[in-house]
């Protein structure tokens, strides 16, 4: 049962990732990415990481991707007409580099195949909200507070960068 769910979810994840990079239309790309993120949340659920699955949907699908869609619609970005109408050397090189990186990862993982972990009996317990919260607010409290500072800095920085100052910016 879990095997079939995993196969369906991973095919969905890979398919939507390919759809994202190959689609000319930016909004369609963003929607494919949403589908990808939701299927990853499904895989997290298979791994019994309930908390991360829900946070993945709240943060990525619910907040970040809506922000992306918002920006795409606001800028009204045109399609990329020349994505695959002619062969470019750059595409071939990109593909080669991708295959090289994939080969490198597979090679390095195969080198340590003997010491990869088997399924732990703890898996059921560690993914729950209680378990994550317990560790997050004791052992990892300092990084957690750092995250708060980081997010505040990001909000202030984004406001500074994106704010429209009339008169100062010359519009082409």
């Amino acid at each position: 049962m879990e095997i079939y769910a995993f196969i369906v979810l991973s095919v969905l994840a890979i398919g939507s990732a390919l759809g994202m990079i190959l689609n000319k239309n930016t909004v369609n790309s963003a929607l494919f990415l949403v589908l990808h993120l939701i299927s990853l949340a499904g895989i997290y659920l298979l791994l019994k990481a309930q908390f991360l699955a829900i946070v993945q949907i709240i943060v990525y699908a619910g907040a970040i991707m809506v922000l992306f869609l918002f920006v795409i619609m606001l800028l009204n970005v045109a399609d990329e007409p020349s994505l695959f109408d002619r062969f470019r050397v750059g595409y071939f090189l990109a593909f080669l580099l991708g295959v090289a990186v994939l080969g490198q990862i597979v090679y390095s993982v195969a080198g340590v195949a003997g010491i990869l972990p088997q399924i732990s009996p703890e898996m059921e317990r560690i993914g729950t909200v209680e378990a994550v919260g317990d560790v997050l607010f004791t052992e990892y409290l300092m990084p957690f507070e750092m995250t708060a500072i980081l997010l505040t800095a990001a909000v202030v920085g984004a406001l500074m960068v994106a704010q429209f100052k009339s008169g100062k910016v010359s519009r082409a």
Partner: protein
Amino acid sequence: MISIEWLISLSAVLFTIGLIGVLIRRNAVVVFMCIELMLNAVNLSLVAFSAYHGDIAGQILVFFSLSVAAAEAVVGLAIIIAIFRNNLSVDIGDINLLRF
């Protein structure tokens, strides 16, 4: 349950797709989404290792990586908006003021 090799392979494939996307796309917003894709691929392998080891540290790390991704998306999109305001384009080929 599936063995962990499958999850790592899935993560590697997704990372590669994201990498190729970064290299072939010209639209800054899509390039940015491909980076999110690569981040997610790494998150997947972290969650897989965390679950199979029975050690929660990996999932905590994913939690932090999620919040960093949110901060990064906010700042990155703000930069893209600022560039669009000056260039009226988000094609990364047109953003070449720092080139020479």
